[in-house]
């Protein structure tokens, strides 16, 4: 069953947090199910989960009813996905604001792969632009590289100013 991750799960770190939340929910669900079978006492309160985790569980619930087995399957699917999912790393010159992150993530999932993971980093020495790393391939579209590549032009431009 294919996973449909929300755009809030952008990076591997987000995916690990999501897996932790789902695992917490699965543990709570298992304990709550046993307790409901044995006693009439009130169930323990639902643990605090992220909106992404809640959304994923609800989506999963629409595909197959929630049970311990289905939650285990979801966890297995997530672990498998975390191990094999395509991921690229985008390094920007400054910490990426949410809008930029969402814009780049949306583009990657729309054009490269639906559930691709995008790790964002920042390096101020880039000055601008970005460096995209996918596997062993590195695409350097930073301003630094372009400026250094054209540094010989600067004296000429300075003379013409």
């Amino acid at each position, binding site marked *: 069953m294919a996973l449909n991750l929300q755009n809030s799960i952008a990076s591997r770190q987000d995916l690990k947090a999501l897996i932790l939340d789902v695992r917490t929910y699965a543990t709570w669900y298992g304990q709550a199910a046993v307790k409901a079978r044995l006693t009439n006492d009130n169930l323990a309160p639902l643990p605090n989960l992220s909106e992404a985790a809640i959304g994923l569980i609800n989506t999963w619930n629409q595909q197959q009813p929630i049970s311990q087995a289905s939650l285990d399957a979801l966890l297995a699917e997530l672990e498998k996905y975390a191990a094999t999912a395509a991921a690229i790393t985008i390094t920007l010159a400054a910490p990426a604001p949410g809008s*930029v992150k969402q814009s780049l993530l949306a583009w990657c999932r729309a054009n490269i792969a639906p559930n691709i993971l995008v790790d964002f980093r920042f390096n101020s020495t880039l000055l*601008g632009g970005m460096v995209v790393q996918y596997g062993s391939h590195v695409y350097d579209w930073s301003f630094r590289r372009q400026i250094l590549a054209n540094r010989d032009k600067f004296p000429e431009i300075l003379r013409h100013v």
Partner: protein
Amino acid sequence: MTGDTILQIFLFLQVFIIGVLTTLAVHYARAHFKAKQQPLEPAPVQSPTDVEIPATLKAHLLQASQAQFEEAVKNSAAQLQNNLAYTNEQINNLVMKLATDVVSNELTRYKADLDSLEKKAETEMGGIRLAVESHEAELKARLAQEMEAEKQRLLKLIDTKLADAVGSFLTETLQHHVDLGSQSAYLVAMLEEHKADFVKEVADGTQPTK
């Protein structure tokens, strides 16, 4: 007392002395001529008819009178010469004293004038020095002000030129209509430009597992 005044006094003295000498000369001349003419005048008291003087006596008396007159003239001339010598010496001494006084006074006055002029020159030089120092300070202040203004102008010019140069360089170097503030469009455009490469690599599964 100026030199002209002293000269006038000296001339007056000369005229006075000449007057005195002339008077004396006239006096003695008159006495001489009187003594010479007196025997020729007829004696009002005794007439030749009363007293007959022998010719020898008359000649003797005439010789004695002439000798006496000559002696008197000689004495008067010697006395006059002595008086003249004495007067000359006195005048010389007086002239020397006057000249010394005049020269001394002139020197004193000259020295006083020199001192006055020196003081005046010092005063004027002090004023000139103050004016020069004031002008120098003013020039220095103005120069410093102009230098600072020129420095600021050059700095501003350099800033402007550098900003233009950097802007032109970035525009020419980046070759994209990059908004240096919001780069979302630029980043997406770059991804879009290499979209085929990404899709191919993902399809080939070249992504290493981490």
